């Protein structure tokens, strides 16, 4: 049982670098990222996190609109603080926004620029501007996301002694853009928590009111981390800073049973009245099983080579959620699970345990591999039994899927065969969409 792959060369990588966290800023309504790095860096991250990832596009400040220093030889030799100052000054005048976050990459770090001083000058003048240092050699976009969020909390939200609002909760969930279906997922999870009686700060996306939610962070009664590991660092930071407890739910719920259990757990933790949530659960369950009952006709009678075993390749969040749902609720056999997001070592044991206990009588392993070449080799050597091999992964796996005569369904970075708008694969409705997608692909559709 291979637990982990040593950090080494990469090909067909399934993530962007920590500068990709600029898109977390972009995802905040009113957020303006300003990048302090080489001329090509930020556009590259757009390629992996948005364009080649369901062709998500952007709203607000993203893609070509992101202001940047385009660090040149001059800045390497003589220092980049002056150029950064010029870009910030102009950005504050040209870009429409409520929160400006300066993200510094490899070059300024290596030459030792004092970026903090430049940014602080503008913050002292009263501008809502934050400094986050996220060089690519320190980690990928998931790490960058946590760094940027904590920087915003420390430098923008700041100190605060406010009264907590009983039903207000801070949600730390998927990473914007990196998680391909984040927009639909955030909408779905907010819908559910709201129906259960909560007010939710979602911070990113269409359901967020923008910087006012960030300012309200200290007012929340607790932090809700719905993710295997990303967000825990944020929650622990908030525990210290604002005395807020947190609830950690490592498996994003997909399907009625998991989602209902999830809502009940959160309601119980918050100690709020369970009547609204039970009403909601009852309605959703009724609708869910209406569709599942219909689906079961197809599922039991269609006899042309449906998949029986599956592999999942992708970041910890979707990998765990989808593998759990398919193994526990649909009865497909998990035969090869690979997490590609360079999960920090301190979380790997716990995550492995979750795979060991996916469901009754279902125990599987997970490997942490980032090098696509090895991922593809592993898949090629996997025994998928008699059914058509089913791979839930990314576009990088298309060659190996073709080689083994399998079906590929893209569920994460990078996804070039899907156009994603508001589709979600989580919760009650999302589970049904996921089944639709998998089984359309299985019968030969796309």
């Amino acid at each position, binding site marked *: 049982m291979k637990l982990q792959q040593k950090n*080494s060369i990469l090909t067909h990588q399934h993530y962007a670098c920590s500068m990709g966290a600029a898109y977390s800023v972009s995802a905040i309504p009113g957020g303006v990222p300003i990048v302090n790095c080489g001329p090509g860096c930020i556009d590259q991250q757009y390629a992996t996190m948005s364009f080649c990832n369901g062709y998500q596009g952007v709203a607000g400040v993203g893609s070509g609109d992101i202001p940047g220093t385009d660090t040149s030889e001059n800045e390497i030799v003589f220092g980049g603080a002056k150029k950064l100052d010029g870009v910030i000054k102009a950005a504050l005048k040209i870009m429409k926004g409520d929160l400006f976050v300066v993200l510094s990459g490899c070059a300024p770090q290596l030459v030792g620029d004092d970026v903090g001083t430049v940014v602080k000058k503008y913050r002292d003048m009263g501008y809502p501007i934050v400094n986050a240092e996220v060089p690519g050699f320190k980690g990928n976009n998931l790490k960058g996301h946590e760094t940027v969020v904590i920087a915003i909390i420390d430098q923008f939200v700041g100190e605060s002694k406010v009264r907590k609002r009983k039903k207000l909760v801070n949600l730390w969930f998927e990473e914007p853009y990196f998680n391909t279906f984040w927009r639909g997922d955030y909408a779905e999870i907010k819908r559910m928590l709201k129906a259960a009686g909560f007010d939710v700060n979602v911070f990113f996306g269409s359901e967020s009111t923008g910087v006012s939610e960030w300012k309200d962070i200290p007012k929340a009664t607790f932090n809700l981390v719905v993710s295997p590991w990303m967000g825990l660092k944020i929650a622990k930071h908030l525990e210290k800073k604002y005395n807020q407890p947190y609830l950690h739910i490592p498996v994003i719920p997909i399907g009625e049973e998991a989602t209902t259990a999830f809502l009940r757990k959160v309601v119980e933790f918050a100690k709020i009245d369970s009547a609204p949530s039970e009403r909601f659960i009852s309605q959703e369950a009724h609708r869910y099983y209406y569709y599942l009952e219909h689906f079961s006709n197809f599922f039991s009678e269609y006899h042309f080579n449906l998949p029986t075993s599956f592999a999942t390749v992708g970041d910890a969040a979707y990998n765990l959620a989808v593998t759990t749902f398919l193994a526990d609720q649909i009865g497909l056999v998990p035969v090869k699970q690979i997490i590609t997001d360079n999960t920090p070592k301190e979380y790997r044991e716990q995550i492995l345990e979750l795979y060991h206990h996916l469901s009754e009588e279902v125990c599987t392993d997970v490997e942490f591999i980032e090098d696509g070449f090895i991922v593809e080799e592993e898949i090629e050597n996997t025994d998928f039994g008699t059914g058509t091999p089913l791979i839930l992964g990314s576009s990088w796996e298309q060659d190996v899927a073709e080689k083994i005569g399998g079906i590929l369904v893209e569920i994460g970075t990078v996804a070039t065969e899907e156009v994603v708008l508001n589709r979600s694969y989580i919760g009650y409705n999302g589970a049904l969409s996921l089944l639709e997608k998998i089984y359309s692909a299985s019968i030969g559709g796309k």
Partner: protein
Amino acid sequence: MPKKINLNLDTVENREIRLGSIISWDGKASELVELSRYEERGRDIGCSGNRSSGCRLCELNMPFNQSSMCTNSIAACQVGNLTDCVLIQHSPAGCSARNPVFNLSFREGLKRRGKKQKNINIISTNLQENDMIFGAGDKLRTAVREAYSRYEPKAIFLSMSCSTAIIGEDISSAATEMEDELGIPVIPLHCEGFRSKHWSTGFDIVQHGIVRQIANKHPKKQSDLINIVALWGTDYFTDMLKPLGLRVNYIVEIASYEDLKQISEAAATTTFCHTLGSYMATALEQEYGVPQVRAPQPYGISGTDAWLRAIAKICGKDKEVEEYITSEHERILPQIESLRKKLTGIKGYVLTGSAYAHGLISVLRELEIVVDGSLVFHHDPVYDSGSEEQNSLKTLVDTYGDIPHFTVSKTQPFQLPQLFKRTPADFVIVRHGGLAPDLARLGIPSFEMGDEHLPVGYDGIVRLGKAVLETLSKRKFNNVLRRHVSLPYTEWWMNQKDPFVFANKPDILDEDGDRTNEITAKK
């Protein structure tokens, strides 16, 4: 006269130094032609030194900037797209984040050239913080050996990034060592992102490496072979040159090692864009005596005529080419006429790379589309050949007239509102990411030129005309967008008229203008 020193280095100096290229300018195209002083630069005189005429091609200095593309990515775009060679990106993983886009182009390119589709294979040394401190020479050598064992490539390329350049990684030595060890060419590319003001230097660096280390040092002449320096474009050139009994050799994207090797054996080198191909063409001429086609690019009727005649001259096909040109004119003119009827008076605008834009504008004007303004991402005042026939901007202005608002600006979408207030357009041709979406939000339909060869040659005029007609209908969607979605710029900026106001009136940033951002902070 100043002396030269020839070092036969494994790299080439950037375009700002070599050609005097600029990335920021505004004025009339004819002005730019004059300031470029192509003929003088071509004779390598540099600054004339005389009192009244000197180097006046100065850039507009802008403190604000939006990011796009770098030389490192260009290296990946070129040699990362070879069918049997491997590129190793010696950098942290972030520099490989554009590879999924190249994968799309690669797979599409393979389809266009009739080859089997497969994923791109680019390796990253995935450098971590430790490597920045202690160096990563060993990791690089491991990566090279791994690349060799995994893919059995015919050649391996090593590309430098901002971080590896700053910490002083020696990819040249690593390349020499590994070449000795493995017995295949290992080519170092000093293409770190900050190397040049503009990404086009990346093409030169790659082409230099290929000519230096892959081109066949003992060439056997293939007198019917024409090198076409191209990207992923559809194969239209084969049909264009077959009537003259000539074959084509596309380089660099989608080529194989053998395709690259035979560049020194060709009868001539040409390209669809001088910005892309001029370094390679000149290098092949200097090192291997492969003549380059000293002619305008093959766009529009006169451009294509001149280009074909120049090729024919080199290959001794002068009689055949005249017959060919006559029959092509007969075939294509009626189609062009019918398109002109539909397009005359429509206003177009081009937003692409330098020489390519000159070609595109030529074709639009051939179709009687009005082009009052255009924008190029950089300007090379001269190309490496110094050949006056290749002065594409001058050819454009001489053949089709001046362009009153010709802008040079390296992919800065914030200038789009001002540019289009100044020169309204019914459609825009774009070739680069990050621009068309802003145009869409302004309500202007655009055509993203994905297939570079679309407007090439006689048939290209017809293809482009049809594409423009299809683009115009996109107006419907863009107007819906314009009614409900806005650009992320302040009202203050949207009310500005001069796209280069920061250069022309630098004090404007200190004027007490829109302070809404400050106000928000006080909430």
